[in-house]
């Protein structure tokens, strides 16, 4: 009996897996999803999030992971801090919110929240889309529709700002350094708009949509003003030939008068 036990132990192939390439040998699907995501592009792989583990490669059934102390299978209660170890600013924004408190509640609580993966699916970690998020707000906030509409309005405003920034960038590429057109206000408004967009994307984890509204609409307002000014400048400049016509008419008249005077002098 002891001999069989020893033999089985000797035959067990327990290996320390601490490189992404080894994880991928079994977890092919997850690896594909991560590789296509922003984490894959940033070279954040399996081990960066899940740590290293001892795995029994010869085990045929059940979970071959030994789940050592270096292994992290994400628990809901710690998820925000774990993601926040890199995404520090987002975690700081989220910390005072009710969402953060909800991640610490036990599984028996109906409104216990899953943390970051509630909006940013794990492994895909895509930028959260407005439609699915708003849908996922419904189950908990069904009694508070105002909250959901505030969030939806904020999100629409951010999308509009992003679109306007794209148009402004196209206008800048056309008009920078063209004569008669002052592109500097639009350039500054564009930079400020980009900064506001980036800040808003982080700060929205703090859920204070009404408070952030003022900053975003100010940036959008100055961007609109600069863009309109630039396009009206460009239209005015395009009409410059209209101002040229009277000058040319004057020159032509003077030429005719010179001819007439010349005739008079020599007759």
């Amino acid at each position, binding site marked *: 009996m002891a001999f069989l036990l020893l033999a089985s132990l000797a035959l067990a192939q327990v290996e320390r897996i601490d490189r992404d390439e080894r994880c991928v040998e079994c977890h092919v699907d997850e690896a594909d999803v991560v590789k296509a995501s922003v984490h894959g592009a940033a070279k954040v792989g399996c081990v960066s999030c899940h740590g290293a583990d001892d795995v029994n490669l010869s085990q045929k059934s059940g979970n071959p992971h030994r789940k050592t102390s270096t292994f992290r299978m994400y628990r809901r209660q710690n998820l925000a801090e774990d993601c926040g170890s890199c995404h520090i600013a987002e975690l700081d924004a989220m910390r005072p919110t009710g969402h953060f408190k909800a991640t610490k509640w036990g599984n028996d609580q109906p409104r216990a929240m899953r943390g970051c993966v509630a909006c940013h699916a794990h492994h895909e970690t895509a930028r959260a889309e407005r439609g699915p998020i708003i849908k996922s707000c419904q189950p908990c906030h069904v009694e508070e529709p105002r909250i959901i509409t505030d969030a939806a309005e904020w999100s629409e405003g951010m999308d509009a700002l992003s679109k306007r920034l794209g148009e402004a960038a196209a206008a800048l590429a056309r008009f920078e350094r063209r*004569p008669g057109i*002052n592109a500097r206000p639009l350039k500054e408004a564009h930079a400020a708009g980009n900064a506001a967009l980036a800040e808003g994307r982080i700060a929205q984890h703090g859920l204070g949509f009404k408070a952030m509204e003022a900053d975003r609409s100010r940036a959008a307002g100055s961007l609109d003003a600069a863009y309109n000014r630039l396009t009206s400048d460009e239209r005015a400049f395009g009409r410059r*030939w209209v101002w*040229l016509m009277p*000058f040319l008419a004057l020159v032509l008249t*003077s030429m005719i008068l*010179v001819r007439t005077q010349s005739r008079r*002098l020599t007759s």
Partner: protein
Amino acid sequence: MGWFGERTGVSAASVRERMARRLAPSSAVPVVTGTALVVLVLTQAVSGSLLAMYYKPAWDRAHASVESILAAIPLGWLVRSVHLWGAHLILVLSLAHLLRTFWRGEYRAPGDLRWIVKVLLLAIAAGLAITGQVLPLDAEGHGGALVAGSMSRAVGAGRLVQGGDEPGDFMLGRFFAAHVLWLPAAGLALLAGHLALVARRAPAEVQAGPTTLECVGLSGLATLAVLALLAVFAPAGLGPAANPLEFKDEKPLWFFLPAYQSLKFLPPLAVVAGGAVFFAGALALPFVAKRWIRVAGAVALSVALLLGTAGALSNRTIAGMHFNNHGLPASR
């Protein structure tokens, strides 16, 4: 006008009489080009003075000041475009004006002093082009400053032209002073002398042909119209600021293309010497009364034209044909 005539000796009657004189078509041509040049010089003086009110002649502020002239100052783009197109037109017309005199052999006595003054005026125009191109400090201007600095160092006048050991702030200041004060002062003095010399020579009175008034008036007005059309429909732009770590493929003003092309296979000293020989030869022309002068002059001009064309074509692809660095067709 009697009041004026008593005090200056120029009466309305004498002006009218002079203006009514008819000119033979062959004498009318230099009057037409000459009047155009005088009008252009005046517009350059006015537009240049206006630009000088906003331009900042410091190496780190020059480009930004020209940018603000184009973008923020009302009608700044118009003043700059007039100045730029006026410069191009002056260079073309002075060359045409001078070449006509050369081709008709009118540099011989008694036209020799007039010829010398014309050559000196062309030299001043070239100097204004060299100094003016550098002032905005865009890629073209920066290249011009580098070449001017290395050419001046090649003849030992480096410290005089650059105000130091390399192109920089002092060089820009000197070029600005030359472009705005020294060269225009010399040019206006020479122009006044030239006009006085021309006024003394009375061309033969003819019975049929345009009157002097027509030549002067129509030519001057046409110049203004052409300048306005060019400035409004082809306004001057501005390239990006000069970067000491990067040189984009900018060619200099077309007037300098022969020198640019020669620099590709000659050291700067040889190019400066070539230019000096060109001008010395032109100045000495009235005093060397030999037949082969015209042939030598024509050869020199065709060499300059060939070099200029090669320079313009070099490193370009035209209608699918690629030209190498020396302006010769090359396989891509």
